[in-house]
């Protein structure tokens, strides 16, 4: 498989009144051509900031990409000028945002917003762009597509708006689509419709897909490889099967233990993770999960732990696992 995107040691900070927030703190990940990769984590773990950094959509200031490399198809995106990035965004890498109501422009028609990218990137004339826009709306399952080009975003329901977003993201047949919590604002039956649509379209175009989500079920259904993030760092990475069936980090195990599952006998009690994520203005020196970790050792708190490959392609930043013990397996088998 060819490597399409490689993020190396990315560090993104935000300057606030209270201090510098270390939102992303040395994150590395890769995406191969046509692959579906998930970044999983809870709010504030840096999954969205990582992906916005890739596209240089971080507002600067207050944000700042302090360190790292973003290699996309052989180019270092962090060295590109504003104009060069504009040509890449939307045509080679595009994004599906979380809230379609706030990410579509409310005062422009859907047709105008769809044809804008086509005219800019593919240099189509207005007539041809309009024709393609209709095709796009049809391909994402919007009924009466011709008649809807002159409608404004508020004419569409939440699910339909997200379909328009998907059409926009795929308009120029990009090599990489980043979907940031694409279905958190919609109902379960619509969630299933939209995610299937995204998967089928990206498969057809051989487009790689990064799904950013906190929903462990969505990851299990769609992703081939998974990066588990916590407090701006990657805790564990591997194939979806490895990460779910043999978690090498107590945080991953904790997440899996805290969600009820429909396919298993009902447990009388859930196993929550006690405490809260750390303050990223003054994150812990050692492993960021150490303050909440049941299996913590004194060494965990001393210095940052690197990701180490335990099994082929399966990495963990947990010292306990690196030393060969997996005490959390006991709890998971309780389910």
């Amino acid at each position, binding site marked *: 498989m060819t490597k399409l995107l490689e993020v190396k040691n990315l560090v993104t900070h935000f300057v606030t009144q209270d201090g510098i927030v270390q939102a992303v703190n040395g994150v590395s990940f890769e995406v191969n051509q046509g692959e579906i990769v998930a970044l999983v984590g809870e709010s504030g773990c840096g999954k969205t900031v990582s992906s916005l950094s890739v596209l240089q959509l971080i507002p600067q200031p207050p944000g700042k990409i302090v360190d790292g490399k973003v290699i996309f198809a052989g180019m270092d995106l962090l060295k590109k000028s504003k104009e060069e990035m504009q040509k890449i965004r939307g045509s080679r890498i595009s994004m599906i945002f979380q809230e379609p109501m706030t990410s579509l422009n409310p005062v422009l028609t859907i047709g105008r917003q769809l044809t804008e990218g086509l005219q800019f990137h593919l240099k189509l004339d207005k007539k041809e762009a309009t024709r393609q826009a209709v095709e796009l709306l049809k391909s994402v399952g919007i009924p009466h597509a011709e008649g809807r080009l002159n409608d404004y975003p508020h004419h569409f329901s939440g699910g*339909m708006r997200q379909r328009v977003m998907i059409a926009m993201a795929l308009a120029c047949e990009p090599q990489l689509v980043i979907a940031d919590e694409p279905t958190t604002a919609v109902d379960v039956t619509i969630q*299933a419709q939209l995610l299937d649509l995204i998967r089928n379209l990206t498969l057809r175009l051989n487009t790689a897909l990064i799904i950013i989500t906190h929903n*462990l079920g969505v990851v299990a*259904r769609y992703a081939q490889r998974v990066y588990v993030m916590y407090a701006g760092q990657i805790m564990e990475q591997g194939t979806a099967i490895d990460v779910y069936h043999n978690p090498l980090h107590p945080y991953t195990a904790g997440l899996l233990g805290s*969600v*009820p599952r*429909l396919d298993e006998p009902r447990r009388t009690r859930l196993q929550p993770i006690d405490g809260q994520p750390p303050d990223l203005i003054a994150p812990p020196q050692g492993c960021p999960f150490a303050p909440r970790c049941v299996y913590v050792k004194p060494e965990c708190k001393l210095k940052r732990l690197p990701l180490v490959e335990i099994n082929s392609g399966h990495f963990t930043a947990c010292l306990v696992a690196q030393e060969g013990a997996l005490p959390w397996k006991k709890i998971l088998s309780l389910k």
Partner: protein
Amino acid sequence: MEKDIILEVTNLTKYFPVTGGFFGRKKLAEVKAVDGVSFAIHKGETLGLVGESGSGKTTVGKNILQLQRPTSGEIWFKNKDLASLSNKELRPYRQKLQVVFQDPYESLDPRFTAADIIGEPLRLHKVKGGEYNKRIAELLKLVGLSPYMAERYPHEFSGGQRQRLGVARALALQPEFIVCDEPLSALDVSIQAQIINLLDDLKNKFGLSYLFISHDLSVVRHISDRVMVMYLGKLMEVADRDSMYEKPLHPYTQALLSAVPIPDPAVEAERKVIILKGEVPSPLNPPTGCVFHPRCFKAFEDCPKVVPVMGETSPDHHVACLLYKECWP
């Protein structure tokens, strides 16, 4: 069985007028947010209420609490029909019926301290002096917070802690019945489990009954004894938890359950998912016959014509779908 029913809802309807005209006085149409819903909640039971946005599940909760007055129907609690009482007559009953809201970021007054928030119901019901402070400390401990946090403001708490405050406020007047309206949806997964366990502990400790409103079917299965499914203002299926999840009868329930992704890639790879067509139609102009028929994968020619009634197909399993002979009017 009849005796241990704590709350009974009969034929509840709530219509909202759609107004127009220059002064907004012309009534153009009606939205049938809740349309003829009947159910009972037993003492010590958690009844889960599932549905997508716009199904009317929150409206049911608000009407039980009399935060909205129903258009018609009865809500029986302690041998009184709450819907027929005046605001003044309702007061003693309000203590016993409490609510935990969805978003702990919006349902707590930012200018109130934790003690003010939890203490407000106490003040309204004239608890004073040393008793007042003692009760606040007690309530904070009860929900897993520390009494020294009493003077903090909501922004000094995390999301999970804020929801604990919301729970403490609901508990202040020793209620018997709590409506939990999507209490987890604003929280992260690892924190959700903390609140679920807290609600469970409190229920056992005080013998509470819950109406647990949620769109998360896995959580509802975990927490509920019985489950109701709503769609476009109507009940589709009511059953005890295990028979609902093991043998869902209504096609809508079947589709909902199959749409929930399971956090296991190996299971997901094998699973056949029912993907419903289209979206929830506008409640302004609901479909004829069975309201679900335009999206139903099992619909047949009678579905647009006949309105199904709730029928009991097996003990404690009720469904409203024409596939079952019990549901023909």
